[in-house]
């Protein structure tokens, strides 16, 4: 086993508020290997974004109670002083966000904004930074990059803005790229282009990628490992085949069943997960998913299930026996999907 690029150990992020303690992330552990793509899947409020904002050092310590360890290349990022964290952020770990409309500054030209990211970390002149920015725009597949670099974000289409964001994120050749719902705001055709682009650039830049999404469909083609999150916890972890062909957690089953599939016949009724995600202030006791779980039994209401590996790799946090999980998945879930 090579040394992991990123290892998160028992991370908790709690926000004290007037209404109570918001347990946004509650004991999450995982690793990202160099060159790997990790998919992180969950609904709004499952803690997937907060986890990675914390990895980036973007949850302010003033408002959040953070515990655990975030080891990046062996170094605990949570213990780093702010200025050292700033040099890592951008040059070693960078992030792209869901909404490319709001993550570019509307007053500055796109080329300048990419160049600014470069100049923050490297001692280069304005002209050199601009040239590098043009080169990056070219590499992310923007035609006429020298003209485009002189345009403002509003002159770009949604897909092009996301490409520009990717160009900015990769301009310093980071080891880890975190993509937070990079295609949710885009058309399916553009989504396919952007996902292919991330795949290709990952190899070109030899980076690891974390892909955060709420849609299991998106990550099927592009991820090595997938982590499913619910109510601030990881409920299932495995490689793509484990998740799609042998899922062990009722929440993952629910996600798989609620997708409208192009290849399903006719107008079959979808089977959504009943109910709503829990409030993160009053997380249900026992398994957080038990109020919505169709397979709930007594133990689920009192004991918190641990994320236990069934074999070396594939793990799920559910009290059902392995035999039951496999039976239910193949008899009830696989039939539809």
């Amino acid at each position, binding site marked *: 086993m090579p040394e992991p690029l990123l290892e998160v150990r028992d991370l908790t992020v709690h926000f004290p508020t007037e209404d109570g303690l918001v347990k946004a992330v509650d004991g999450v552990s995982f690793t990202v290997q160099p060159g790997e793509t990790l998919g992180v899947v969950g609904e709004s409020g499952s803690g997937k974004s907060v986890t990675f904002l914390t990895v980036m050092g973007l949850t302010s310590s003033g408002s959040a109670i953070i515990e655990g360890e975030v080891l990046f290349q062996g170094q605990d990022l949570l213990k780093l002083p702010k200025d050292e964290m700033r040099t890592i952020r951008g040059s070693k770990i960078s992030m792209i966000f869901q909404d490319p409309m709001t993550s570019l500054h509307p007053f500055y030209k796109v080329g300048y904004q990419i160049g600014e990211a470069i100049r923050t970390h490297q001692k280069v002149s304005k002209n050199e930074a601009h040239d590098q920015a043009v080169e990056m725009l070219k590499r992310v597949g923007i035609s006429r990059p020298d003209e485009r670099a002189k345009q403002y974000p509003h002159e770009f*289409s949604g897909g092009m803005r996301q490409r520009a964001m990717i160009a900015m994120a990769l301009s310093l050749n980071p080891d880890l790229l975190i993509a937070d719902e990079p295609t949710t705001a885009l*058309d399916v055709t553009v989504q396919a282009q952007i996902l292919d682009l991330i795949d290709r650039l990952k190899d070109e830049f030899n980076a690891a990628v974390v892909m955060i999404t709420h*849609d299991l469909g998106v990550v*099927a083609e592009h991820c090595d490992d997938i982590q499913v999150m619910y109510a601030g916890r990881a409920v299932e972890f495995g490689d*793509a085949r484990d998740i*799609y062909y042998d899922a062990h957690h009722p929440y993952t089953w629910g996600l798989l069943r609620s997708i409208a599939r192009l290849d399903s016949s006719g107008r079959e009724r979808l089977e959504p997960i009943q109910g709503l995600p829990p409030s993160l202030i009053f997380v249900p006791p026992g398994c957080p998913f038990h109020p919505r779980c169709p397979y709930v039994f007594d133990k689920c209401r009192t004991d918190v299930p641990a994320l236990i590996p069934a074999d070396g790799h594939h793990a799920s946090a559910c009290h059902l026996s392995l035999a039951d999980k496999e039976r239910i998945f193949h008899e009830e879930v696989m039939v539809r999907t």
Partner: protein
Amino acid sequence: MSVEVTERTDVQLQAERRPLVRLTSVKKYFPITQGIIFQHHVGDVHAVDDVDLEIYPGETLGLVGETGCGKSTLARVIMRLYDATSGTIEFEGRDVTRVKGRELREMRRDMQMIFQDPFASLNPRKTVGSIIGEPYHLHKTVPREKVKPEVQQLMELVGLNPEHYNRYPHEFSGGQRQRIGVARSLALHPKLIVCDEPVSALDVSIQAQILNLLEDLQEEFNLTYLFIAHDLSVVKHVSDRVAVMYLGKVVEMASGDTLYRTPKHPYTGALLSAVPIPDPDLAAQKQRIILEGDVPSPIDPPAGCRFHPRCPQSRAVAKAEGKPDGPHPRCYEEEPALTPQHPGQLAACHFPLEDRAVADATISG
């Protein structure tokens, strides 16, 4: 309010003859002007260009296409939120293209809209009760003192707790807010509901809840939906027929299954191949049709077939016929009309995809 089974089949039979909405060569151009004091007309955005469309009672017509293809403009033209530049809109056989004032207001009772963004489409300073009750106050279909029980009944119908009558939109999640939008659209018992990307802002698990709710309501009230989305898998799931739009034109129309199994227009093929499949093995087998370039500007759309600059099929045919590199001349010289393909399928293409090629292009097996 529930419709008898016999009545429904009658409606369906009738539907063969009388569409609820009929659009005949509808165009919507937005003028581009220059100058500060004197506005010179220098061009037009051809948002919707010569669209013929029929929506039958009780059906769901899906409308798909990329951003900027004119699908939302078309919906707003049907709703009479925009005036069509030319062409006619008939609602229940009556020409409503130019109706105004009271007549228009009465017509609007029969057509309602559900919007994409459940955060932007609800007034944050009004309670849920007054948002859903607003149509009653505007149209005075229900006496003032009966509004509250009516609204609470609607809330229950869409799966909201009627006790939350006095809460504000920010107290609800995205999915619940979309339910508020659905309840508001049902208040006047409309015949047609235009759903403009109703689930694309929601989580997948919540999408399924809203889609099921829309289906249940359709059955209960015999509603007709125009369902707009950019995601073909969602559209196919809910729609009886699907119209595919590209740069202001309908390029293909068929039932969802036909469209999926045997798309004829190369653009439909490309759209289908871009939809992600939640199955790693099938996804790996799938051949992607990659479209080159961006959607051209609707200010000066390409001559002939509007898809020709990006069409892989046109290039392939030109190559097979030994023509010079690039699209086939017929594609930029002559505009293709919507012509019948398989039964119930129309496509506007000179060189429609063959059935076999499509099976390869989407997924085999």
